């Protein structure tokens, strides 16, 4: 005969507490916020003051600055948080047995993963908000002509970048290796996706590779949303497939300890 215990999963209060805890961990690690919030802003400002023709209208009511630069900055914010920051938190939690500690409570370690993603998404919105605020005030940036499409692309970009982040977290044995692999993955996809200048300036084979990677696909899709043009289905495919691949790799390889 076993004990009469009613199995009870942690409720909304537990989720809220865990998200608050993760948010406090992130905000109290101020150094970790510099890259995702500062680097995109730096690129935005430096590119904004370096090119004179960014104020030229490339579509009705939308400048070259908005169409070509803001999609890169938005994608950078998402990629730095999802590909570099989130995996390093998970790798640290794994190394210090924090996930294992949670595994012996009614909370599952998967709750930490979800809470991390929620906090990361808040960081994404904050990073985009700061970048967009600076762009509006100092560079007369325009809102996307297709805002709903832009929002959908942003969500697809987040899913794809979290997918890449989960691959990084799955294959990294230590927190240091997580940062190293995350940085390599970030700069690899970003360089081919137009972070250091228009992807069109790259040799054609690299352009093709970049267009099949999530950074390039996100930038291209956001550029079309900003210009009010339909998004190439290939970009949706790339972002969706990257998210699915990341989930699959994580399911197969991610270890809580």
């Amino acid at each position, binding site marked *: *005969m076993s004990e009469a215990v009613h199995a009870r999963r942690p409720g909304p209060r537990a989720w*809220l*507490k865990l998200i608050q805890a993760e948010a406090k961990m992130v905000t109290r690690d101020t150094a970790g916020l510099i890259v995702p919030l500062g680097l995109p802003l730096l690129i935005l400002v430096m590119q904004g003051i370096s090119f004179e023709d960014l104020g030229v209208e490339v579509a009705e009511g939308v400048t070259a600055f908005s169409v070509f630069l803001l999609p890169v900055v938005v994608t950078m914010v998402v990629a730095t948080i999802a590909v570099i920051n989130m995996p390093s938190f998970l790798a640290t939690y794994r190394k210090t047995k924090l996930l*294992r500690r949670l595994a*012996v409570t*009614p909370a599952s370690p998967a709750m930490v993963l979800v809470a991390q993603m929620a906090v990361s998404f808040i960081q994404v919105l904050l990073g985009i908000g700061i970048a967009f605020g600076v762009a509006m005030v100092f560079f007369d940036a325009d809102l996307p002509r297709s805002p709903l499409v832009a929002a959908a692309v942003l969500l697809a970009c987040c899913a794809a970048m979290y997918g890449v982040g989960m691959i990084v977290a799955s294959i990294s044995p230590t927190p240091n290796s997580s940062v190293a692999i995350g940085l390599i993955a970030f700069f690899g996809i970003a360089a081919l996706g137009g972070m250091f200048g228009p992807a069109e300036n790259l040799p054609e084979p690299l352009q093709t590779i970049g267009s099949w990677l999530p950074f390039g696909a996100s930038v291209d899709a956001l550029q079309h949303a900003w210009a009010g043009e339909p998004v190439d289905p290939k970009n949706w495919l790339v972002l969706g497939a990257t998210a699915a691949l990341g989930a699959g790799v994580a399911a197969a390889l991610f270890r809580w300890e």
Partner: protein
Amino acid sequence: MTEKPQPPAIEARHLVKRYKHKTAVDGISLRVARGETFGILGTNGAGKTTTVEMIAGLRKPTEGSVRILGLDPFTERAKVRQILGVQLQGAYLHGSLTARELVDLYRGFYPDPLDADEALTMVELTDKARTKFDDLSGGQMQRLSIALALIGRPQVVILDELTTGLDPRARRRVWATIESLSEQTVILISHAMDEVERLCDRVALIDAGRVLAHGTPGQLREQAGAVTLEDAFVALTGKDIQGDEEED
């Protein structure tokens, strides 16, 4: 109508854990009564931690079965998590959170948790409530870990290497906390003889993944014809308790 007998707090039957090139646990069976403080004693590498990880449902046994208050920790995980409190060896917590924030976080996981102030008072950390976990001393971290293991009012508590690395004063404070647990069944994993002798009703001596002997500390001393539990351990295992530095 006759009442059905209550299951023991813990019943582990013929637990075996094999890895590729090593058998960490080789047929351990334990039965711990409700309300008992039970010590598992052995050198590093003896199989103590692997045994309790199987009991806690963290590591699936290669062979054998475990029941906690009659519940299977692998198939009835959600139920077991509510009645079990665990303090893991070397486990870390969210380092940037304060003691109070951690207590609040862990309280949220349980249906009927201890009051936060009560939990901090129990381990004498009220004055450290606003101190970040990273800034606590080793003893304070350990006491907070105990508070978190007890926060859900568990019926069974597993405490692994409770006082390793603590100074004598910190050890005594931790012991006092354990001695105050009158209602719970406690499994204490240690290689500190004085700790086991002071806190445990019964002890199992484990070596090379097997139970060599079990009984009250007095019975073990008597069995080995030894004056102290440490002498009994040496006589029964042929090893010095501090001698082996292998991974457990």
